[in-house]
């Protein structure tokens, strides 16, 4: 305690009397090191989190009801829907019917049977346009034309990955049709049944489940696909209070809904690769950040070393008049700790006070997601602890090296 008190006094006075610009520079180095540590991995993880958030909002929702493993579809969908209507915790839900079909364009202009057909194998989703819009905001993704009207039939929304002009940027990955605009007629074939549909709109989203999809009304879908039992493929639900989906799931299970459908929260139902990529990016970010830590610790080492070297005579005098080595080491460790604390504090202030909000409002646009900055406080705290401990070591080592030199040699400035 005595050593600590005197060490802190010496350290504090050294900071107070140090060159202000040098101190400012050290604090900036620490701040940028902290930001490097937090922001690099935060943005990398934020790319996936942005994608995940979009998938949750535009496709999967908070809870997903799908067919049980032994079934093809949700059993007794009508009963499920009646049950869902009794839960006030549900903000919105959408019933989806899905199937595959062949979409053909420009068939009317085809002059001979041998001419190449403009076709694409597509996913078709039948929805109630109003419920789907409430659930996923599908109408917001319309970039050309209009959204589906529940009272109209014979219309289709086409995801932009199925259109040659939009999908070009991805090479030949997607099966596409060319030059289709709202108002054009296309033919959708499911098995032996074909139906002419008018393109109502083109939809664009960074979520594949939306952009690589076509939407028609559920009535139309059931007729086209012969799904007369009204059993759907998927029901997606959004809860009023985020974070309560697990509780709602428990309530569903308690009321026997799990006999009719497989019930999963988003976290349970999301593809595993998302979690894997997220972890990989996090590790990558930590690795890049750790290079920053090494640079910062070397910087702190050099600064403290030069500082201690330039005060070698004073250190010798302190030892000469009876001050223990440990006290002097504490003084330098205190300085390093102060730099780390202030630098990290400013970094944290900048991260939580500005950067996270900024990236939330101005996400980084990537083809597959809108990247945000993700910095969970508990992870940030762990990274700060790592930075802090390494800084303490970087402050201690040079002090230790110089303090252990011969006292008289230090006082007299001899080597």
């Amino acid at each position: 305690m005595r050593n600590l008190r005197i060490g802190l006094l010496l350290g504090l006075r050294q900071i107070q009397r140090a060159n202000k610009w040098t101190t400012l520079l050290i604090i900036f180095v620490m701040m940028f090191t902290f930001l490097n540590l937090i922001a690099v991995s935060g943005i990398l993880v934020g790319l996936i989190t942005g994608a995940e958030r979009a998938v949750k909002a535009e496709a999967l929702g908070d809870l997903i009801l799908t067919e049980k493993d032994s079934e093809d579809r949700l059993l007794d969908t009508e009963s499920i829907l009646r049950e869902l209507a009794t839960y006030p915790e549900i903000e919105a839900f959408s019933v989806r019917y899905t199937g595959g079909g062949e979409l053909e364009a420009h068939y009317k202009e085809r002059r001979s049977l041998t001419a190449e057909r403009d076709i694409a194998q597509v996913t078709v989703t039948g929805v109630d346009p109003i419920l789907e819009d409430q659930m996923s905001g599908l109408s917001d993704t319309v970039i050309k034309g209009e959204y589906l009207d529940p009272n109209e039939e014979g219309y289709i929304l086409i995801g932009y990955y199925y259109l040659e002009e939009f999908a070009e940027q991805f090479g030949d990955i997607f099966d596409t049709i060319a030059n289709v605009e709202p108002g054009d007629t296309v033919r959708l074939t499911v098995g032996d049944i074909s139906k002419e549909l008018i393109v109502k709109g083109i939809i664009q989203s960074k979520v594949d489940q939306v952009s690589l999809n076509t939407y028609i009304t559920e009535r139309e879908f059931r007729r086209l696909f012969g799904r007369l039992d009204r059993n759907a493929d998927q029901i997606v639900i959004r809860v009023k209070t985020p974070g309560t989906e697990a509780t709602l799931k428990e309530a569903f299970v308690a009321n026997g809904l799990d006999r009719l459908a497989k019930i999963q929260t988003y976290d349970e139902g999301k593809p595993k690769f998302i979690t894997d990529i997220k972890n990989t990016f996090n590790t990558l970010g930590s690795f890049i950040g750790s290079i920053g830590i090494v640079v910062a610790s070397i910087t702190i080492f050099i600064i403290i070393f030069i500082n201690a070297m330039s005060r070698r005579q004073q250190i010798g005098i302190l030892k000469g008049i009876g001050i223990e080595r440990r006290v002097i080491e504490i003084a330098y460790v205190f300085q390093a700790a102060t730099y780390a604390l202030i630098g990290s504090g400013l970094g944290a202030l900048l991260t939580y006070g500005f950067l996270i909000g900024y990236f939330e409002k101005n996400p980084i646009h990537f083809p597959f997601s809108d990247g945000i900055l993700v910095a969970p406080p508990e992870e940030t705290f762990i990274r700060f602890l790592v930075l802090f401990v390494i800084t303490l070591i970087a402050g201690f080592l040079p002090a230790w090296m110089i303090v252990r030199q011969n006292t008289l040699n230090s006082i007299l400035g001899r080597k």
Partner: protein
Amino acid sequence: MTTIINATNIHRKFGEGNLVTHVLKGIDFQVKQGEFVAIMGRSGAGKSTLLYQLSVLDQPTEGSVVIDDTDVLKLNEKERTSFRLNTLGYIFQNYALIPDLSAEENVMVPLLMKGLTWEEARSKAQKSIDDVGMSGKYNNLPAELSGGEQQRISIARAIAGKPKILFADEPTANLDSVSGQQVIDLITTLNRENGQTIVMVTHEREYAVNCQRVVHIEDGKIVDEERLR
């Protein structure tokens, strides 16, 4: 009077092999409690080196040093540091104040190290600074004081802990004659009024006249000793 310093057959060599410099060549040196002894000699004679051996800042190559019944050569580094803190006081020719600390804090640090509370250390430090005639300069940084004033603070630091022996290594070397004389008068007063044991290195005869004994060193050996009082 009891012998407080008893150094026997002190040798100090620097370097190795053919480059060995033999600075002290078998010095026997005793100081009695309450004595004020000056060590004089030309530059390079070995007077400061002798002081460093006596003041536990250095270790002789050969010989023994017993201070206040403690064989200081048997102490480890931590014990020597503690011994210096509790038994010895130092006045260096370059004042040796810590520039980041105020005058008061410079004096307080060894007192805090001795285990005094902040208030006790502060009170003792202020009294010590008052005793060397520097009242009102408690909060000045060393850079804000003249050379003579800094040396007074250095003396205040050395005596605040009431050391058994005070070592002064050419305390007037960096001072003008007026300031130098004031410092010598202050040191003399400490000896005469408080019975402080003092060992001082100086190369100026005029500053040694107040001592009880002057030891002359030449080429690493004591060549003469005169008793003035």
